[in-house]
């Protein structure tokens, strides 16, 4: 049943997402592709919207995917799923173990997880980039280059770097999304 699947999938996402927003994209992508809920393009669309609206990306993604697969109830189930592990774990920590981080083995475990998440984010990004710009998802695919996309990527990347040098702070994601939207219209 879709509601249970949504709930359980996002329960998993909520339970193992360390490292903030983009950390859980890897798992959400895995679930969405495995269940055939979204294509990679649709996933990227959702992330774009989730980035531009208030609220944590994980929760927004859950609401969005849940709605697209199971309507209102679906979005409720997915959102509840993604929030529940945090809720329970934090309640336990706040009420019982006051500071879990005091324990060295816990810090040791987290010290392994942190670089792992960095690796996950990179590999998810690279995998999706190759798939988007070159049309290659697995080694048996033919090369389908997306030059328009490559141009936009280069523009956004260079633009960001230049902006950061001049303005001394990073451009806001919403600004970048807006610019890329305009370029999308122009290029395609």
């Amino acid at each position, binding site marked *: 049943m879709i509601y249970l699947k949504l709930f359980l999938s996002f329960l998993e996402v909520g339970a193992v997402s*360390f490292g*903030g927003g983009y950390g859980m994209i890897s798992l959400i992508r895995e679930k969405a592709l495995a269940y055939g809920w979204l294509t990679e393009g649709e996933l990227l669309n959702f992330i774009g919207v989730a980035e531009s609206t208030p609220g944590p990306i994980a929760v927004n993604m859950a609401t969005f995917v849940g709605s697209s697969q199971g309507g209102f109830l679906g979005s409720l189930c997915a959102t509840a799923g993604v929030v529940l*592990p945090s809720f329970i774990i934090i309640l336990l920590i706040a009420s019982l173990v006051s500071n879990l981080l005091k324990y060295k083995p816990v*810090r040791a475990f987290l010290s392994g997880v942190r670089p792992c998440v*960095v690796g996950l984010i990179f590999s998810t990004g690279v995998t999706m980039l190759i798939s988007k710009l070159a049309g290659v998802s697995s080694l048996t695919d033919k090369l389908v280059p997306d030059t328009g996309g490559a141009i936009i990527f280069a523009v956004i990347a260079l633009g960001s770097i230049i902006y950061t040098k001049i303005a001394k702070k990073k451009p806001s994601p919403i600004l970048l999304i807006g610019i890329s939207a305009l370029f999308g219209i122009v290029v395609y």
Partner: protein
Amino acid sequence: MNVKDEVMYLKGKNILFPLFFTMLKIGLFTFGGGYAMIALLEDEFIGKKKWIERDEFLDMAAIAESTPGPIAINAATYIGYKMAGVAGSIVSTVAVCIPSFIIIYTISLFFDAFLEYKLVANAFKGIQVCVLYLILSAGVKLFKGMKKNAFNVTLVFAVGVVMVAFSLFAVKFSTIYYILICGIIGTVAFFLSEIKKKRQEGEK
């Protein structure tokens, strides 16, 4: 209940509504992820309303960062609990989710129809590329902030390379396993270094 819990309980009765509305406001204005929300929380809870001590707040921020799940949710639950026990944590967490839930759900209703317009569809093709850039730059930012010791760098590259390779060769290996395995490696590495330390001390 001991005295402290009783005090919290009584405080809790009068605080649920203000807590609800404060978290609703924060949920509406948190763009850009958990860290932004923590700044907003600091503003509201310490600066304006003085509901929480700075020390408690810093504890919360550290925990919210290290436990699984979205930082914003962790922080909301924790602060809610400190303010008003379990009821507070429920009120706080639900309140912080409501604005984004309503916004996203509404968008989702029109999204497919919206995408039917060629202009919108093309705009989103551009946005997809931008999202990829954002993901990669998030990775770079985390990498820069990370201590570049052998352990960390090895894990980053090992996970990165293995995952891309598995994906290209269509091997299924869930994200969860990577996280668990790396966590265990971290714990084992710690115990090994403790054993080494004890041995060195024993030799003195």
